[in-house]
């Protein structure tokens, strides 16, 4: 790796820090670099202290970094909040109107807003000013930046492009002249990076695209951070693509409406976070009992109750694995990054229809709001599998819950000519009519239970990074994959015998590979973004196997490789 720069853009909610971050990301992605961006914000609409942190590298990056090279601060708090993490020769750029007297060499007050106004004629161009300043301290060739800005603002027309470029240029020059310190990065000879990954995608948007590619035709949701943008992304294209996308009165309605839609034949989903999922629990049981496929996306956040609405945690795993009274098959998938988020969502719909069970996708705020550039996704060839459908045409004997060898009954939909489709949340006969007969009950329970082994066959095994016979195995699931993967690579490069066993398909749990790796490892360490090591507990529940150490983070902030390594060293891994 020859280049690895981290920018932290901080300020108050509503000041446009996301916009600056986006511009930075776009410029570097266009220039051929890998980027990874996280968002850190409070549960408020204006004010406070938020930041977006962008990491740029010439090799793929999968997590954020602890060290910051450049801070762009739009408020005083944004300087103070992050300066401890500034690297030697790091730079702090801020508007010179901010009342900040403790000037050090790394501090670079600049007339951002003033220049935006004077040169661009609009304080909203402070974004471009900040961008110009950042690029200047990096000695980033301005021609490259202006080309990128042209492309970025292209849709808005010349009237927007030129003033923005002018503002950026003006600050670029001022900064060059005024910057006293020395930045660790000198990009003056930069001509472009190696990355071909040009699709800029957040986890939530990946979920939305996956659902659209899987032909979701119904989504009913109720806003809840950090899931909301996935729903909004679908709403925003609903008109173009003809999707029924509807904001309901609550989550009880969201899921039950989606069940109605799916029962009547449309691929359906809901998006929510833990609190909303809590309200869906009874509906989950209805989906299960009526064998109505549905996809539920839960972007987790720290709980219980309202908890920390805009922070991250992996603490709904065991809840979702056992939610709702009674017993029934279900599938839980936890993507590790946006690309997998897309793929998992496409699979989720197929799995839901194939097994006629609810499929739940577990993201979290870290996943939802993180942005990466990934290879372009080509959806044009995507084929979907709607599972077992009853042959068209009249069938007066049609039974929605027909007992079959594999426990899966051919689906038909109300409205299909010549069939009567009956379902019930009560224990029912093959024809969907309710029954209290103990034999019917046994048959129907056994029908459910038959699905699990088949589901297991259809799920993906865990992945292993590193040598299979490493001394230390790190056990991870879902979205902590990135920082742990980076930590493993760093430690391995230092000669540590270590590997990472990672699960994205988390329930029901595929255990063969796990058993094999556990058998070889001298010690297994679980790393989870929660306080009670839920995945390690799930593993023990399914296999009886213990992990030797558990590493947990539960302050609501995402992990970094640095944090992981520090914790590993504390437990003797070096």
């Amino acid at each position, binding site marked *: 790796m020859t280049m690895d720069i981290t920018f932290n853009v901080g300020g108050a909610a509503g000041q446009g820090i996301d916009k600056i971050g986006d511009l930075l990301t776009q410029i570097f992605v*266009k220039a051929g670099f890998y980027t990874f961006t996280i968002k850190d914000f409070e549960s408020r609409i204006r004010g406070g202290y938020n930041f977006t942190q962008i990491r740029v590298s010439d090799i793929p990056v999968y997590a954020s970094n602890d060290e910051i090279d450049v801070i762009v601060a739009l408020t005083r708090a944004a300087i103070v909040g992050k300066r401890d993490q500034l690297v030697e020769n790091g730079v702090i750029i801020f508007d010179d109107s901010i009342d900040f007297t403790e000037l050090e060499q790394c501090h670079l007050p600049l007339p951002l807003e003033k220049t935006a106004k004077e040169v661009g004629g609009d304080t909203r161009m402070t974004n471009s000013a900040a961008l110009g300043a950042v690029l200047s301290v990096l000695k980033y060739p301005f021609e490259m930046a202006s080309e990128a800005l042209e492309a970025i603002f292209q849709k808005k027309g010349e009237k927007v492009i030129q003033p923005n470029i002018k503002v950026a240029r003006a600050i670029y020059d001022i900064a060059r002249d005024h910057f006293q310190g020395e930045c660790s990065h000198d990009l003056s000879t930069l001509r472009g990076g190696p990355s071909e990954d*040009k*699709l*800029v*995608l957040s986890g939530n*948007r990946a979920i939305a*695209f996956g659902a*659209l*590619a899987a032909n979701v*035709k*119904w989504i*009913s949701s109720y806003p809840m951070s950090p899931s909301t943008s996935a729903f909004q992304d679908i709403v925003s*294209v*609903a008109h173009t*693509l*003809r*999707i*029924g*996308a509807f904001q309901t*009165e*609550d989550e*009880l*309605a969201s899921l*039950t*409406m*989606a*069940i*109605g*839609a799916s*029962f*009547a*034949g*449309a691929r*359906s989903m809901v998006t929510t976070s833990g609190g909303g999922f809590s309200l869906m629990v*009874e*509906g989950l049981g*209805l989906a299960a009992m009526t064998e109505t496929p549905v996809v539920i996306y839960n972007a987790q956040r720290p709980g219980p109750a309202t908890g920390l609405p805009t922070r991250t945690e992996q603490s709904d795993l065991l809840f979702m694995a056992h939610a709702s009274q009674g017993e029934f098959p279900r599938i839980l998938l936890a993507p590790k990054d946006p690309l997998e988020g897309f793929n998992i969502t496409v699979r989720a719909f197929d799995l839901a229809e194939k097994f006629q069970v609810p499929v739940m996708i577990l993201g979290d705020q870290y996943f939802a709001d993180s942005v990466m*550039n990934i290879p372009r*996704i*080509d*959806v*044009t*060839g*995507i084929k979907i599998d709607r599972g077992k459908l009853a042959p068209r045409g009249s069938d007066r004997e049609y039974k929605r819950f027909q007992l079959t060898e594999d426990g899966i009954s051919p689906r038909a*939909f*109300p*409205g*299909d*000519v*010549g069939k*009567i*489709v*009956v379902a*019930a*949340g*009560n224990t029912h006969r093959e*024809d*969907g*009519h*309710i029954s209290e007969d103990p034999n019917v009950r046994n048959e129907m329970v056994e029908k459910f239970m038959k699905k699990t082994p088949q589901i297991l066959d259809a799920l993906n095994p865990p992945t292993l990074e590193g040598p299979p016979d490493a001394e230390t195995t790190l056990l991870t699931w879902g979205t902590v994959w990135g920082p742990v993967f980076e930590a493993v690579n760093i430690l391995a490069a230092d000669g540590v015998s270590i590997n990472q066993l990672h699960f994205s398909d988390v329930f029901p749990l595929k255990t063969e590979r796990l058993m094999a790796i556990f058998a070889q490892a001298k010690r297994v360490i679980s790393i989870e973004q929660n306080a009670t090591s839920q995945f390690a507990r799930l593993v023990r529940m399914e296999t009886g196997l213990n992990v030797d150490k558990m590493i947990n983070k539960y302050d609501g902030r995402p992990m970094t490789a640095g944090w992981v390594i520090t914790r590993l060293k504390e437990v003797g891994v070096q």
Partner: protein
Amino acid sequence: MITLKDLTAPQKVTWCSGCGNFGILSSLKKALVSLEIPHHEILLVSGIGCSGKLPHYINVNSIHTLHGRAIPVATGAHLVNQDLKVIVHAGDGDMLGEGLGHMLHAARRNVNIAVFVHNNGVMGLTKGQYSPLSPRGYISVTSPPPPGVPMEPVSYLAMAIASGATFVARAFSGKTKHLVEIMSKAIQHKGFAIVDILQPCVTWNRQLTWDYYNDKVYLIEDEYEPSDKIAAIEKVMESNERIPLGVFFQAEKPDLASGLSIPIDGKLKDHQTSLSRLQDIIDRFVLE
């Protein structure tokens, strides 16, 4: 298109003999026959309660859902296949306790479904507790004297009208001819139709009996004009010395489906998202 025989009960009825639900079931059958709807285009959605079992006693498409959630399930099914005539049957406990919010939201959205509330003033299936329609002072296992039920019943028809329902009516299980007529109108109505069906529970409710209703019900005067909201609210809130039957309110308004991005022709359920359009959307985020 449907004959009564087509509708023959798939299983034995389990209601108590004398129950008001029988009149509702037979009226529904007659209404469906008279409406000449294709058999496969009917979908019943029911809640949980004695009332919620109705779909098992008539041979049509159905889904017997959860207590209180019939309306959202019905809404979802309706929106993805608007050819379906979606009919909801639920008890007063179900629809007005657990489900009150859903009902009123569906009303203001003017969802094109017909909702039949089995108003027996008790929780039947759970053995006679008071329900949201039990009158003040009503005595039951969960509202012992003094003072019996310590509050007013839910004035839900008034609320449905205020909320935006476009067909609001009342009928009585004991007057099946009228009930058939009202049900038919409700099913045919384009928009949210709700019917309060007086349904004596002979086992638990010793107050709202056949005699009680036979004594008090009357058909709304012919000259009554069901187009004025306030007048309609006034009518449904009339003192309960006499109980008006008929259509209180009716209006034409855009329904929910017309405000969603449903395909211009064909059903949402059969629609296939254009992958090339989706590719265009994705490509907006590709920075070449």
